[in-house]
């Protein structure tokens, strides 16, 4: 489809989900990309944020005397965790259960949602406080709970802004990256009736006051998890604001929903992983609150939840165990590859139409949600390799984007026109006779037609010279 800028920008709310309903994922992706790539104001905001990020990352890295060795060691640790994931999951379950925690396994989003709902019903919960978690975005937890009469409020400032504005997070680490401070002040003014033009500090104070009540009232606190630790049966949550701490301090039930790939073999690995996550995620040396949860309140403890559940979520992650993309399971979701990606910087986080955007999202989404519908994401890369360079655990991200393209081609998913085009192209290229037989004009016309909808759409028309190289060579030798 050819979308004019105006018609694409019209829908707001759930970023035009309903507007684009009925279009294929690919068409929506192309339409949104086209709009965003030409939106200079959007580009300015993203560039501003990413420049600030890049400047702090340099400072964070100074804590490492041997950064390259640290990254290699980290990759070794994640390799160990994923190559023995079955045993580590069992070890985690055994240790976490031994201290009174409960483990629930969920194969897909529905199972995870049902588990959360049944816990909430048992506790007669009306209010849930949630700390930042991409997994809960992935399973659309807030909308699901709302449908069942349970209010789930985001407590991370960036997520709170996005929830007020009825938008999904734009970036996996910095959810409201695409909003200027004026944009945020406007959202607060419109949704909460605050004075217009509040400063970031004033906005933060409003959020603090509003959410303090919620921590005290909520029956259930829900978090994600940055790591699972097998040897002590722990879930780790890293955050800067203290909302994760408070969400797990007051409510009498704590539910942590964590993807199975977040595994680390040992608590001793955190000394390496916490600083790496902080440095590559936000440019800090360490995150302000790095917390381990090994279960509910123990005997003799004076506060904390009576019950703690961990929901171990698959939801397509086991598909990533196939050899060519297994490394994507090493990802610690720092967002670093998004920040360096020229495609991300141009089309922005929402165009991908996926919970996990940017290069790593383009690797995993086709496997988690279906190759046929999401294969186009693997082509949304210049294969410049910036993502691989920027990865704290040295995941070969651009290599896997290429691997996905091969998979899509092998499975014949590239569409009749493109496949036929390349077949005819191959036949012609392998035949000297065919190449010399046709003159330049007819070649331009034929090739132009073959690739009209793919190459021709965004490139100048192909013009072949009158004579082929072979003919010229014969004449001049």
């Amino acid at each position, binding site marked *: 489809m050819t979308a004019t800028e105006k018609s694409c920008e019209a829908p707001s709310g759930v970023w035009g989900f309903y507007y684009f309903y009925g279009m294929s994922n690919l068409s929506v992706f192309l339409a949104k990309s086209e709009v965003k790539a030409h939106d200079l104001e959007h580009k300015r905001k993203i560039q501003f944020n990413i420049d600030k990020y890049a400047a702090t990352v340099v400072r964070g890295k100074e804590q490492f005397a041997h950064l390259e060795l640290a990254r*290699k060691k980290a990759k070794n640790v994640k390799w160990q965790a994923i190559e023995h994931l079955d045993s580590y999951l069992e070890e985690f379950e055994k240790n976490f259960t031994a201290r009174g925690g409960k483990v629930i396994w969920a194969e897909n989003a529905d199972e995870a949602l049902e588990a959360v709902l049944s816990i909430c019903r048992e506790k007669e919960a009306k209010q849930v406080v949630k700390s930042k978690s991409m997994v809960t975005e992935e399973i659309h937890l807030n909308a699901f709970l709302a449908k069942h009469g349970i209010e789930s409020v985001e407590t991370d400032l960036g997520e709170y802004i996005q929830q007020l504005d009825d938008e999904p997070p734009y970036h996996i680490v910095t959810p409201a990256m695409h909003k200027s401070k004026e944009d945020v002040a406007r959202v607060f003014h419109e949704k909460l009736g605050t004075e217009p033009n509040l400063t970031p500090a004033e906005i933060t104070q409003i959020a603090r006051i509003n959410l303090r009540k919620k921590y005290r009232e909520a029956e259930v606190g829900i978090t994600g998890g940055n790591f699972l630790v097998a040897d002590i049966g722990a879930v780790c949550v890293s955050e800067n604001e203290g909302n994760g701490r408070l969400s797990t301090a007051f409510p009498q039930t704590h539910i942590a929903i964590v993807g199975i790939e977040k595994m680390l073999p040992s608590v001793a690995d955190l000394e390496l992983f916490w600083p790496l996550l902080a440095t590559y995620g936000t440019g800090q040396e360490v995150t302000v609150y790095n917390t381990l949860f090994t279960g509910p309140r123990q005997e003799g403890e004076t506060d904390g939840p009576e019950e703690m559940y961990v929901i171990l979520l698959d939801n397509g992650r086991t598909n990533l165990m196939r050899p060519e993309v297994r490394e994507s399971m090493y990802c610690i979701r720092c967002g670093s590859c998004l920040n360096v990606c020229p495609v991300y910087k141009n089309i922005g986080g929402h165009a991908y139409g996926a919970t996990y955007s940017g290069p790593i999202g383009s690797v995993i989404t086709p496997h988690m949600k279906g190759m046929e519908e999401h294969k186009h994401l693997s082509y949304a890369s210049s294969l410049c390799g910036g993502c691989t360079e920027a990865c704290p655990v040295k995941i070969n991200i651009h290599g896997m984007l290429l691997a996905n393209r091969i998979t899509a081609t092998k499975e014949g998913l590239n569409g009749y026109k493109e496949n036929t085009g390349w077949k005819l192209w191959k036949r012609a290229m392998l035949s000297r006779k065919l190449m010399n037989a046709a003159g330049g004009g007819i070649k331009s016309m034929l090739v132009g037609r073959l690739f009209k909808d793919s190459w021709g759409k965004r490139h100048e028309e192909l013009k072949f010279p009158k004579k082929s190289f072979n003919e010229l060579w014969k004449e001049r030798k």
Partner: protein
Amino acid sequence: MKTSKARENILSKIRKALGTHKAPQPYPAAAEDVTPVYSTTELTDEENFASAFIKLGGKFVYCYNEADLVENIHVLYENSGWKQVICSDPALQNVLNKNRLHISTLADHTFPEAEVCITGCEALVGRTGSILFSSRQFMGRTAPVYYPIHIIVAYAHQVVADTNHGFRLLQEKYGEQMPSMVNFNAGPSRTADIEKTLVVGVHGPAEVYCFYVDA
């Protein structure tokens, strides 16, 4: 709940994939390499802690002994105009009261709107400037984060070099009775969610003091 079926399915999918293909270790040489990855300094662990903690935005107050500590807390109290101070560490509350400094009440589950909370800690981490807390401390999950100003009292023997030394200290102290929550806190609560502009005091404390007792 159909949890056991999900459990079996997930584990069997993983085992099937691992059975089909085993990935080789990415960097065998790095696995053997014991070179420390972090930069080191000429400073002691205490000095490292103080400088890292200050860099994080913490306020470090050195005290010769407990008498000095009480005096310093008193001076700060006199100059700040705080209306209500909570103390979540019974032993510390005792030290303050014993020295006739009756400024604080012991923390409880009513969570009054106090400006300040005084707590103890489990350890100070030299390299990162983090302070280790646990739920084995009195009101350990709530006290260090709920109040706008946090005063931590730490003693010289609590300083460790890095994160793993902190874990070891906890394991030695609690053995099988490990706390349900362990937290490494690096300075005041902060956010940069709006235009990457640093704002302190989001949900946790905006001001964090460490009174370090060198005794």
